[in-house]
Every structure is written in C-alpha cells, then in structure tokens.
C-alpha cells in the first residue's frame, strides 16, 4: 500500500489505481497513433512515456501490495498529482482538495521539480500513516463536490 499523508479511504485508492491504469495503457499507444503523447497531455513532466509507464506500474503494484506501506518518493507524488490534475481538468479544485488531504503538507506550495530523475529502483517500506478520522463518505463528498460530473467523460485528450 502507498503511504499517503493519512490512511487512505477506499474511494481514494480506487481513484488512484484507476488513473494509474489509464496512464499505463495510454503510455503505450499503437504505432499508428504515435503523434502527440500522453506525457504531453499531462503537462510539464519532463519524462519519456516509457519512464512514465514504468513509474505508474511501480505505483500500481505497490498500491496493491497488502500489509506493507511504501513511502512515495517526491517524483512519484508529482506523477500522481499530474494524473489527478489531468483527470479533473475541468474542476481543478477537486484535484487540489485531494492533494490537501492525502499529499504531504506544503506540496502545493512547493511541488517537486518537474524534471524527474531515473525511475526509482528501490522502494522504501515505511510505517503506517496517521489514522484518517474523516468519514469516507464525507471526505469523498468534500473532495469531489461537483467534481464527479466534471471528470473526463473518457480518456479524450482533446
């Protein structure tokens, strides 16, 4: 499991995993559609599609690994942040609400550099994050209020 700022509720884990799955598929387009890349759509991430795919696969794998918590390096947090922004492009405050709950304090004020280093080859186990005292339904409602309808209707990059 990924170590967020607090113990993640299921709705958030589902959202992250789904966005990672989309990214993994989108980062390997067929050769007949090679113009314009998913990375370009994500914004200022200085990374190749192959690297981004590897990063997303690593995050997805660790997020599904039960019983262990894995610290998320700043580079990887930035990837998730960009995926959230892309997913909620039409309602940016939803992405920011989520960041306020689950990302380290101060992330929005001082995000990591958009130039990513090599894909982390080591994963760091960590202790569990602090308990999450917010009710899952309340938390989801507060984060996504108005955001569900604004979520991209498909993976339409246009």
């Amino acid at each position: 499991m990924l170590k967020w700022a607090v113990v993640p509720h299921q709705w958030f884990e589902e959202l992250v995993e789904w966005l990672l799955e989309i990214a993994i598929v989108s980062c390997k387009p067929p050769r007949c559609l090679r113009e314009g890349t998913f990375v370009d759509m994500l914004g200022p991430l200085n990374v190749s599609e192959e690297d981004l795919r590897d990063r997303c696969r690593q995050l997805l794998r660790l997020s599904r690994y039960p019983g262990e918590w894995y610290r998320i390096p700043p580079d990887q947090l930035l990837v998730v942040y960009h995926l959230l922004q892309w997913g909620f492009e039409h309602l940016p405050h939803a992405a920011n609400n989520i960041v306020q709950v689950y990302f380290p304090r101060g992330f929005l004020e001082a995000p990591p550099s958009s130039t990513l280093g090599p894909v982390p080859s080591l994963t760091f186990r960590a202790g569990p994050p602090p308990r999450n005292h917010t009710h899952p339904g309340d938390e989801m409602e507060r984060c996504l209020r108005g955001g569900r309808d604004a979520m991209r209707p498909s993976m339409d990059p246009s």
Partner: protein
Amino acid sequence: MLMWTHKPHPWFQEFVRWSLARAITEIDAPAYLSRPPFSDSIGIRETDDDVLVAIFGEMLSCSLMDHTYRLTAYQFSLMYRVLRWSLRTCGRMNTSALLQMRGMYMPGTDYLALCAAARPEHAEIRMAWDPPCHNPRSSTDEMAAVMRGYRSSLDIPTYIHREEAH
C-alpha cells in the same frame, strides 16, 4: 489472434488490443464517479457494461494467443464500435480510417442494424481451423493508407459508405 477477413498486420493488431484495453479500463472507473455507462458511449443499449467487459476481455486474450479465434457477428459489431470509440476519443476520429479498417479486416455486414437486433454471445468465441486470407499489402503501406485516409488506394465496398452516411 482473432480471425479477420485478412491476415492482420501488427499495426492493426496493436490498435485493436490497445482499444480493447482502453475500453476495459474505461469501464473500470470507480462507481462513485457516476459516469455514463460505456454501453452508451458506443451506442449499445441492450448490453450491460459488466457483460461488455467480459466480452472485451475475452477478445483481448484471444487476440494475444497463437491460435486463431473466430468472432461472432455480434462480437464483430462490438469491435467495430470500440474501434470507432477509440479513434474518436484519442482525437483521431477519421471516418475514412475506420471505414478502411472495416473494409480490410471485417466481414461485410450492416453492423449498426445488427447491434440493434442481436444479443451478446460472449461464450461463443471459437477456435478457427483455417487461417485468415493472405494479406497482400505491405504493413507500412497499409497503415499509411488507412491512417492518412488515402481511400482511393484501397477498395472499400460501396455499401459501407452508404451505411456510414446515415
């Protein structure tokens, strides 16, 4: 692999697999996002998303196998709609490309009419004993012709144009 009317070139197989994988992922969206059913996105009203994802998963896994598997007419009609959705949602909606893929690789049927009348038959993917017809075109030329819309270089049955015009 899947049994197309002609032996598929790798570029087309990649596109088919990618489109099916994207469709499966799309259907897998968290329920609380209350997104419209994928069946609506591709204009299929008689089949639930749960059934669609089972069909897509089966088609995807068969497309990755060495043996050749024959699709039913209904599965072809779903495939046609998934390819259309895939082109549209990746910003490459090009009716000419879709028509050419169809003309090259799919049996000649009125898929839009078929979908309205047919029912899912996802258990009916069968192994085919005969390979698809030889594909005389080079992979590179074929892909360039399809994706750039050089329709004149390939034969597309006229009934397809009529159907798409509706």
